């Protein structure tokens, strides 16, 4: 039993989330290492004290998560709050709470896990305030025209159709449209029409009644119903099966639909934004997309330019992502070197902004803090045959944690990672073995 408890404690101490438990008198009786780190308090100072005296959260008096579980009989997930650490600093956290029960199912205490959201809050704050238009970065003419158009349609509920290659920021455009609309305080539901098989997509969008199909063990509210009063984004709408396109057409025309397996007609008031990276003209010609649906959706068309058509925005985007990932990885960089900017401007960016973002994240991981990022730290397909003239930052100087991150980014493809680092595969294998990674 003792051995089992020790193993459990080891597991809990290895988590990045803070975890603590209280007895039925709300006194702390377990406090893991991450909780010590986040709160700045050692477990020996905390155990035996009332949790409200340690955390000093505004929730303690008004909406204690464990009391909420007791009152409602349901565990609490992702509750946002803040606590004071030992220095008196306010730490934003996100909380999950549940009851601990004995073998007779009697509650004997509660368990709370919490995550420090400081870094996320800082990134979010930065992203909200350091962009040109509701999270979108860019000052080029095509993108400024999009800003103007979004502003013009702000007071309407007109259906919008967003076109653009993959990675151009269609979802961000949709976010900006919702944020400027009259429905900004209502729900904004996003559905990717390409990831689900046809029957599941129908259930996802319109819901189903109990027993409508084999796994329908209870009724389900669909996304349209859930978004009632708000906005729905139908991403990759051109991938939608034809039968579903017909149902969608009816929702757009009269605002009604039926759940799968039901005959009750339901009415909703939802503003529709659709997006696609497919050339719709071809899809209509080959019969995979309904022309009548196209005309219904295409009230306000917005074409998002590919990154190669707005290269004047690249420096701004680079700066934006560099700041974002510096915050995320807790590193500090002044900028990229000139060679990097040369590479950025010459490259075609088939993956558009997403590809640029990935490249910057990669470079941030590979580089050491307090430096200008060298072009040699860019992904191999960008830097090509470029050889760094600086004393190597690669191979031997790569830290263990950076090496592991590189492996994760490349899905543990050691050949690829070795090539990126400019070393032999067997050298990489030896390095990994030396740090205990097979």
């Amino acid at each position, binding site marked *: 039993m003792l051995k089992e408890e020790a193993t459990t404690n080891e597991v809990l101490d290895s988590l990045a989330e803070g975890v603590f438990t209280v007895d*039925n*008198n*709300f006194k702390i009786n377990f406090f893991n290492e991450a909780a010590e780190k986040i709160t700045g308090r050692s477990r020996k100072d905390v155990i035996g004290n*009332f949790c*409200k005296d340690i955390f000093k959260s505004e929730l303690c*008096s008004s909406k*204690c998560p*464990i*009391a909420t579980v*007791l*009152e409602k*009989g349901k565990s609490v997930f992702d509750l946002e709050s803040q606590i004071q650490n030992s220095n008196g600093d306010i730490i934003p956290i996100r909380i999950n709470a549940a009851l601990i029960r004995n073998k007779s*199912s*009697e*509650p004997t*205490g*509660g368990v709370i896990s919490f995550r420090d959201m400081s870094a996320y809050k800082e990134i979010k704050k930065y992203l909200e305030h350091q962009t040109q238009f509701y999270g979108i970065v860019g000052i080029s003419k095509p993108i400024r025209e999009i800003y103007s158009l979004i502003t013009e349609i702000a007071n309407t509920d007109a259906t919008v159709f967003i076109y653009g290659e993959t990675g151009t920021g269609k979802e961000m455009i949709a976010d900006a449209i919702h944020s400027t609309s009259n429905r900004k305080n209502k729900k904004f539901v996003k559905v990717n029409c390409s990831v689900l098989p046809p029957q599941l997509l129908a259930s996802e969008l319109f819901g189903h009644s109990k027993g409508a199909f084999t796994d329908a063990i209870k009724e389900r509210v669909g996304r349209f119903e859930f978004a009632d009063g708000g906005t729905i984004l139908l991403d990759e709408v051109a991938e939608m099966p034809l039968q579903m396109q017909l149902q969608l057409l009816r929702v757009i025309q009269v605002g009604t639909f039926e759940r799968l397996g039901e005959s009750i007609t339901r009415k909703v008031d939802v503003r529709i934004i659709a997006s696609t990276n497919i050339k719709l003209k071809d899809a209509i010609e080959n019969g995979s997309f309904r022309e009548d649906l196209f005309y219904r959706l295409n009230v306000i068309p917005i074409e998002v330019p590919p990154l190669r058509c707005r290269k004047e925005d690249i420096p701004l985007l680079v700066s934006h992502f560099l700041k974002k990932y510096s915050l995320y990885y807790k590193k500090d960089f002044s900028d990229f070197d000139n060679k990097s900017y040369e590479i950025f401007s010459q490259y075609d960016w088939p993956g558009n902004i997403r590809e640029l973002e990935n490249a910057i994240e990669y470079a941030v991981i590979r580089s050491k803090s307090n430096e200008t990022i060298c072009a040699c730290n860019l992904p191999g397909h960008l830097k090509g045959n470029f050889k760094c003239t600086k004393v190597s930052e690669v191979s031997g100087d790569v830290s263990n944690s950076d090496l592991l991150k590189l492996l994760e980014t490349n899905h543990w493809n050691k050949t690829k990672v070795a090539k990126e680092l400019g070393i032999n595969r067997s050298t990489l294998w030896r390095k990994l073995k030396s740090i205990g990674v097979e």
Partner: protein
Amino acid sequence: MLQHNALSHRKITIKLIYLRHSYCASCLDMSEMLGNFYFHQRKFLSAQRQLEQSLKFNSSDSIKKKLIICYTQSGLFNEAIKMLHDLINRDINLITKTKIKEENCPCADLIYEIENSPNFTRDDYEQMLMLGILWLYCDIYKSKFYFSLACELNQSDNLVLKIFNMISNCVNNNLNNNSQS
């Protein structure tokens, strides 16, 4: 703070009985923990409701100690006195040795509010009784003082008199032990 409202004692009891029967059995096992939570929040009426439920299944001294305080705040002095008598008859230390900080006992704050209230008077039987009960958790000598005032104001309550006698005996024993040492 005294949570005594305009309802008479009988009406409060009826209301509580009604609320008592509105709980389902599966909720009862949550009662002690929830009662403890409300008690720590100084929501004595809510705490009382939960702790009474849990007492049916768990005759714990810890629950009774809290309930006594809750009863003083909802004006149910008969219930408070009865429960207090039962506890100190077994062992007066159950109350007098309360660890105020560790148990988050609200008595000191409640006493301060009453004694500094503009309505405070030593001619009010219920106030004297309440202070006698609350002081027993903090200071047995002050508790004896207020119980003596209560007995002077109402000589017909035998249970209060019994409690006063038990407290007096304990005080005298303490004084004897101190003089011997």
